[in-house]
């Protein structure tokens, strides 16, 4: 069991900067998910922790020990690879035993550890098979089993579910969560799938272009995105963004002027905002309603009926579209003229730089996060 601490960790390949100074405090036993678009550096960051890539500068501590110069095997980590990376010529048993054998464990010790892990993962009947005789899900279990027998302080997962089909993905996701509950080991998990991130993580690290955009609990990130990037990345369908201008600054928030429509007062702290400054208003599809008193008017261009709810794509003038989620029993048709009401307390305001304006205290439904989980923008 160990905590993982990154201090100003940087990585460059030649002249390309892949990781720009990441600071991160991962507590013992925590399940951390690195999430971000492809190429954001999340896998590289994981590989730096694993020791498969060199840290260009900065420091990495695992369990209080500085491990920058330690070989992967000496860091007390185990890694589950995207492609499983099973040794094709070895049986399942040998795949799991290989690391212990190299560590010169006794035969009896190896045998008991391998069999215990196999029992736990329900692959004890497959121990004599070769990887090519296994299904994708079984291979995945062997890869996890190989990690478990190392009894690592930190588990590293590099997009472990992306090669599985949808049903298996959900099932394995649940098993990984259970593995975390059972072992209480520190786990670092890389994915591009926000559902995996939201469901598995104690805390999520959102990465973009080699920088940490925000660190926080899943709900904290969802409800209080620190910037435009996080706001747009988490949540499906994506948050709607409407450019507008500041028309009034008062004690109850910032009033902004929506384009070709009325104005709305968002309960955020103005913090140096000037009049007529351009800002972006963000609102999730669930937080808008069709209402005759709505501030925005437009025409429904497309209705996607998903069953439990429907997505309406509303043209609000020009090329601008907003997405609204409506209950599945409502009936709407394309071409219909509608007015949209925005819930002010669910609106987000972002400065031109992308940074979110902090909410006025007590104005939000979900409880604010505890201070030690406070989000940190790079």
């Amino acid at each position, binding site marked *: 069991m160990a905590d993982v601490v990154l201090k100003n960790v940087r990585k460059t390949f030649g002249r390309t900067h892949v990781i720009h100074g990441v600071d991160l405090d991962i507590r013992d036993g925590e399940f951390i998910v690195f999430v971000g678009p492809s190429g954001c550096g999340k896998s590289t960051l994981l590989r730096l922790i694993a020791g498969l890539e060199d840290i260009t500068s900065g420091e990495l501590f695992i369990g209080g020990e500085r491990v920058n110069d330690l070989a992967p095997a000496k860091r007390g980590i185990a*890694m589950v690879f995207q492609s499983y990376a099973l040794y*094709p010529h070895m049986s399942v048993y040998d795949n799991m035993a*290989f690391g212990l054998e*190299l560590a010169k464990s006794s035969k009896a010790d190896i045998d008991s550890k391998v069999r215990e892990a196999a029992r736990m993962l329900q692959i004890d009947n497959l121990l004599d098979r070769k990887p090519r005789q296994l299904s994708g899900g079984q291979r995945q279990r062997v890869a996890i089993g190989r990690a478990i027998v190392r009894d690592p302080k930190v588990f590293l997962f590099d997009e472990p579910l992306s090669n599985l089909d949808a049903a298996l993905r959900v099932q394995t996701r649940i098993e990984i969560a259970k593995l975390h509950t059972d072992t209480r080991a520190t786990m670092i998990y890389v994915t591009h799938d926000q559902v995996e991130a939201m469901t598995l993580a104690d805390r999520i690290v959102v990465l973009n272009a080699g920088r940490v955009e925000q660190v926080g609990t899943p709900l904290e990130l969802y409800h209080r995105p620190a910037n435009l990037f996080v706001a747009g990345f988490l949540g499906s369908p994506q948050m709607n963004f409407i450019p507008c201008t500041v028309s009034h600054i008062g004690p109850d928030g910032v009033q902004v002027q929506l384009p070709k429509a009325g104005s709305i007062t968002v309960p955020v702290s103005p913090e140096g905002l000037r009049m007529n400054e351009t800002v972006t208003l963000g609102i999730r599809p669930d937080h808008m309603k069709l209402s005759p008193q709505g501030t925005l008017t437009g025409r429904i261009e497309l209705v996607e009926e998903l069953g439990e709810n429907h997505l309406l794509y509303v043209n609000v003038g020009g090329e601008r579209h907003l997405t609204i989620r409506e209950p599945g029993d409502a009936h709407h048709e394309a071409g219909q003229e509608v007015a949209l009401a925005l819930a002010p307390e669910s609106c987000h305001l972002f400065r031109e730089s992308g940074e979110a304006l902090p909410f006025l205290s007590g104005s939000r439904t979900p409880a604010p996060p505890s201070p030690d989980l406070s989000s940190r923008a790079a």
Partner: protein
Amino acid sequence: MKMLTRIGFWLLVAAVGLFSIFPFYYAIMSSFRSGSDLFTIAYLPERLDFSNYVAVFERQPFGTNIFNSIVVAGAVVALSLALGITAAYAFGRIRFRGRSLLLMTILAVSMFPQVAVLSGMFELIRAFGLYNTLPGLILANLMLTLPFTVWVLTTFMRELPKEIEEAAFVDGATPWIVVRRVFLPLMMPAAVTTGLLAFIVSWNEFLFALTFTLTNEQRTVPPAIALMSGSTAYELPWGTIMAASVVVTLPIIAMVLVFQRKIVAGLTAGAVKG
């Protein structure tokens, strides 16, 4: 029109096929004819006369020549692969300074004209006391096979998944263990391909074998066949030569037919991807 194209195509196929195998067919035919029969032209076999085959093993030390060729080619293949696989791991999977330059140099050596090293090699083999011995030929032939073995194995090595190697490092493997326990088993198909090519190169090698051997007992098959002579200098024992040719070619042809796909894969890995 379509029929005509069809016929034309098959005629072309037949012509290519005939051109490819006729010389070998004719050699087999001639090898079964002896005495004055040989000096009349025939296109179809009439009877099987094995006297040329008897002659090639009785009047010539051809059995020894074949044995020599097998020893030399076998040793060359074994050495090339042993050296080549470790080197290919380094070249194919590790970034280090000077890698490209070294790889280029090795590729360049594989294109060396043999004659360019002939006098230097002659001196070297003499200095080691290996003139007119099989180890001398093994050493010389390594110059032909080792560079392309390294090259072809490197291209194969590059195609193995990176994650398997990384999993082994996480498991605590050293580079040597990675090569021996993980990559060596995975490289077996590639090693077979490369080994076959190296075997063919060594089996067919002529210039070194001709220059660095003196007595018929130390010769490999190619110079033995090239230097086969009859009772007089002006009369070549064509029947015997054809019998010898057939004997040494059959195993190669069998190998080509069996391992056709592997050989083609090796050739294209060495050339097209290069």
